[in-house]
């Protein structure tokens, strides 16, 4: 049985695309299942990719299994909030801070969210498509 079928059996609500598997609310459960099932053991979370499609933000979680030498992408569409996965993959902490900083997404359960790249006084989230360049509220643009 291949990986996509296994996930489909366990979580019937997922939508399977060729490159990614989309879920609407079971993100934490799916990642937990993928990491802790011995025959899958997707043990590395490569990154978290955020894409701003104006109506919604899509988050993609690319995972790598060193045991199977396989890769899989889990995606979720959100408005501005999603559950944090630092309980499953510790490496997600910096990624979540980065997305919080550049996209303004709030990760529920990650209590130490901070602006990773921009100064803490920065206004706005630069990678959002509606981000205003030359914002006059920032003193150096005024």
């Amino acid at each position, binding site marked *: 049985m291949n990986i996509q079928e296994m996930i489909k059996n366990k979580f019937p609500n997922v939508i399977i695309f060729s490159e*990614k598997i989309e879920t609407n609310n079971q993100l934490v459960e799916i990642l937990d299942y993928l990491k802790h099932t011995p025959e899958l053991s997707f043990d590395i979370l*490569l990154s978290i*990719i955020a894409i701003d499609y104006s109506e919604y933000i899509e988050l993609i979680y690319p995972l*790598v299994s060193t045991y199977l030498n396989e890769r899989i992408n889990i995606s979720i569409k959100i408005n501005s909030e999603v559950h944090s996965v630092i309980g499953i*993959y510790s490496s997600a902490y*910096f990624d979540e801070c980065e997305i919080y900083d550049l996209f303004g997404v709030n990760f529920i359960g990650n209590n130490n969210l901070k602006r990773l790249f921009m100064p803490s006084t920065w206004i706005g989230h630069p990678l959002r498509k509606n981000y205003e360049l030359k914002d006059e509220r920032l003193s150096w643009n005024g």
Partner: protein
Amino acid sequence: MKGYLGMDKMCLNLGPQHPSTHGVLRLILELDGEKVLSAEPDVGYLHRGLEKMAESKNYIQYLPMVDRVDYLSGFFYSYAFCNAVEILNHIQVPEYANYIRVMLLELNRIASHLLWLGTYLLDLGAISPMFYTFREREDIVTYFEKVTGQRLMYNYFTFGGVRHTDIYLNEVKNIVEKIYFKVDEYESLITDNPIFISRTKDIGVISKKKALDWGLTGPNLRASGILQDYRMNTPMYDDIEYDIVMSSEGDCYSRYIVRIYEIRESVSIINQCLEYLTTIELPNIECSRVPILNNPVGEIYSFVEAPRGLTMCYLNSVGEDTPYRVKWRTGSFYSTQILKEVLKGVNLSDVMAIYGSLDVVLPEVDR
């Protein structure tokens, strides 16, 4: 707030202008005497917005920019981006160009590892290895300058191949012959050196589980005893034989051993490329034309095994002439993050030994 020995705990700011941080990393250390209680890496001093820039530049305009993600291994990032665009537009890369790419990537890997070796030993207080490694690195960088016109930011790979085929194979042959023997020289200086061993052995041990959990890749992960090398999944490397170097201890010393042996493996890969490139007749291209890019709608994940870990270029196209979103996943980002975990409970004098061994380059973290 009293610590051990009844002394006050101290908060120490290491960096951002510390000479051993190889860039601008700020570490906020909480100290009890000389023991580190907690460490908090603070990054972002080199944030240039490379991902935002991609959204306003077209593909060809963005190409010179990607070398700047990491100035020590520019070829890898250029390759990752070119590869993503090639997959998106279904462009076939000719075989000779693939071999030239592999040869230059591996030369770049050697140059990057040599610079790491010199500066790491410098961090530990040994001055002379720096001059030895920079001597050999200079040959490689001079060769790159001759071929690409630049010493660090090459902009030589292009969509569908390489810019020109004027690549002076004889010089490569001389360089790798020399390096193969010089690696033995470094090893005779460093590997059995009792001071080096006592500074690095059993220091900064990262267990298998911890390494995976914190997303380490590349030589750092292989030093913890996990077989993970994306070259195995890269079609470009299919006809090339090489060994994957692994070590099981996960301490600073094994990270050194892995990198030293990787230099030897790279030399063997370059020799195989040279063998191929000297037998065929290279087409005489003075300036390659970029193929027409249609940029269909699609999401592309392009991977390359860079010297500092697995690098991913995520490219999202919605059919316009600029990318909709580009995301860089770099190895150093995760090597910096793990400091939070590894530095807990170590001596202050070991902080730089551990940090140096992870081979972090800060522009890659901040992008």
